[in-house]
């Protein structure tokens, strides 16, 4: 029986009673990975030696110095840099890249005493929503190995769902924490833009990117956000707002909560089973004392095109740094500087990444800048305004996280426009910069469904409170996928 499906509180109890050591906990995680990852393929690197040596030294720490996450294993998405450990962004461009410093979040999880056991698979440079765009491997959904885990943080969500690690860090530019969390039946939070430092996150779209926790329960999620949130002198876009104790918000009391349910989030293109699960979830929330009303987000139909224009534009600029000279893929036998650039970027990037750089370059070009990029930024203002209007009357906005359950591997991802249209439920949240969580709210044909709870800027405490109250009133979070301990 693995320990990896226990909560942080349960694991702390075992550590404090000396029923288990940090080293044994780390070994358990490594054994789970050895046992399951051949099928799930969530990890790009397993850092067994570093993890065990860190665990041994943590075991010497007196009990009174230990916090709520001390000694617990975590996996880190491979676009978050880790000193001395490869950080590939699942790209040939960074296949052998070993960072010389740690991201702020990497530092913070270390300071909390967490033990990183490795780096997690993703779509190349986080560009995708199935994890099939990884240059190295396809991650499989632990609930059904023929299905994708979602993406781009597919490795993070699959590793937690399979019970390889109890905690993972993902990143969310247009839904990349929430959608894989929904597909894999776990909890994923995209915090308010600026809540978590992006220092050491390999940039995709800087005005949208946020790092977020993926866990089995809402309480564990709140604990991990407690550990990684806060202003950072190395990220000038990190917010100086005080970070509240997110766990303290989990009171279970949501009486009087006013919920807005956008009709666009339950309309055309949303699968019937997903719709039913969300309507059932709203009934549960009503039984806890909340009320809900149907509302409209009039500009939501524009969210995907706005997102793709802005994200690709920012990416074309951010990814200009990969030039094959200072680090990253270096072509053999290039005769001049121009050839180094052209060949390193042609041979180092995959098709999806090149396509997005090309579209972004086009959207930022002198002739099209006003019509495409600036136009998208203006519609972004209207999308953000839609949310601001709702939050004047309502406490949270609720809908599904994804239009369907997990796709078949090799299926829908072949059609870029279907994939992009399916992002409509998540991308508006990044455009507005507000926080949102996905919690399990159903199982349909053996695949999990995710409920998305969106809050106002910096209102993560309320988002967590609602998610926790809902979770405690249901038992979807207690169900386990076929791949994992118990029923293989």
């Amino acid at each position: 029986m693995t320990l990896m499906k226990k909560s942080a509180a349960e694991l702390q109890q075992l550590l404090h009673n000396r029923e288990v050591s940090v080293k044994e906990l780390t070994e358990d995680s490594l054994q789970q990975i050895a046992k399951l990852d051949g099928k799930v393929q969530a990890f790009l690197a397993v850092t067994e030696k570093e993890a065990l040596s860190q665990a041994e030294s943590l075991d010497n720490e007196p009990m009174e110095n230990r916090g709520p996450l001390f000694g617990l294993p975590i996996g880190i998405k491979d676009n978050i840099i880790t000193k001395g450990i490869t950080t590939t962004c699942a790209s040939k461009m960074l296949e052998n890249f070993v960072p010389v410093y740690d991201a702020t979040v990497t530092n913070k999880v270390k300071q909390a005493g967490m033990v990183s056991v490795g780096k997690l698979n993703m779509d190349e440079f986080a560009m995708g929503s199935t994890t099939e765009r990884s240059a190295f491997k396809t991650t499989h959904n632990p609930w059904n190995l023929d299905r994708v885990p979602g993406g781009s943080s597919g490795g993070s969500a699959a590793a937690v769902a399979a019970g390889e690690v109890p905690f993972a860090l993902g990143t969310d530019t247009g839904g990349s924490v929430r959608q894989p969390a929904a597909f894999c039946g776990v909890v994923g939070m995209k915090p308010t833009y600026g809540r978590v430092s992006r220092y050491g996150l390999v940039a995709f779209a800087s005005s949208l990117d946020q790092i977020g926790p993926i866990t089995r329960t809402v309480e564990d999620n709140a604990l991990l956000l407690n550990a990684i949130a806060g202003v950072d002198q190395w990220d000038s876009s990190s917010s100086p707002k005080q970070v509240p104790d997110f766990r303290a918000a989990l009171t279970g009391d949501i009486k009087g909560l006013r919920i807005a349910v956008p009709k666009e989030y339950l309309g055309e293109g949303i699968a019937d089973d997903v719709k039913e699960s969300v309507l059932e979830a709203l009934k549960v929330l009503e039984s806890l004392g909340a009320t809900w009303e149907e509302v409209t987000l009039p500009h939501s139909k524009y969210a995907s095109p706005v997102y793709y224009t802005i994200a690709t534009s920012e990416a074309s600029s951010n990814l200009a740094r990969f030039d094959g000279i200072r680090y990253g893929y270096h072509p053999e036998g290039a005769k001049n500087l121009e050839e180094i650039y052209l060949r390193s970027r042609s041979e180092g990037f995959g098709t999806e990444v090149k396509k997005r750089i090309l579209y972004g370059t086009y959207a930022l070009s002198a002739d099209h800048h006003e019509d495409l990029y600036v136009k998208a930024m203006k519609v972004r203002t209207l999308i953000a305004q839609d949310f601001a209007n709702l939050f004047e009357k309502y406490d949270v906005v609720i809908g599904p996280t994804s239009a369907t359950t997990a796709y078949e591997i090799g299926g829908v991802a072949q059609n870029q426009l279907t994939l992009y249209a399916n992002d409509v439920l998540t991308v508006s949240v990044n455009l507005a910069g507000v926080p949102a969580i996905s919690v399990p709210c159903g199982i349909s044909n053996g695949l999990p469904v995710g409920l998305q709870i969106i809050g106002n800027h910096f209102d993560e405490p309320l988002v967590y409170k609602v998610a926790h109250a809902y979770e405690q009133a249901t038992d979807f979070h207690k169900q386990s996928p076929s791949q994992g301990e118990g029923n293989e």
Partner: protein
Amino acid sequence: MTKFTQDDVKYFANFARIGVSDDEAEVFAELISELVGFGDVLKEVDTDHVEPMTHPLQLFNVLREDVPQDILDREEMLKSVEEHEAGMIKVPNIL
């Protein structure tokens, strides 16, 4: 522009310093034409009096004293560099 041609692909690929073969240009032309069509819907939105949103939050510049610090070790950083000599990064002749 509604159709993104292979020449367009090569034109913008040159700015982005990405080498593309003729075969790739054909694939990208088709994919990007689809994206251009996907974005056309934004034309119907009236944005005459709307300011572009450049950032999700209102933030202010934070200034600090510019004090040099030893943060990263040069030798460590050079480990990621394929070609270097005497602490400097080598590139092919550019003149």
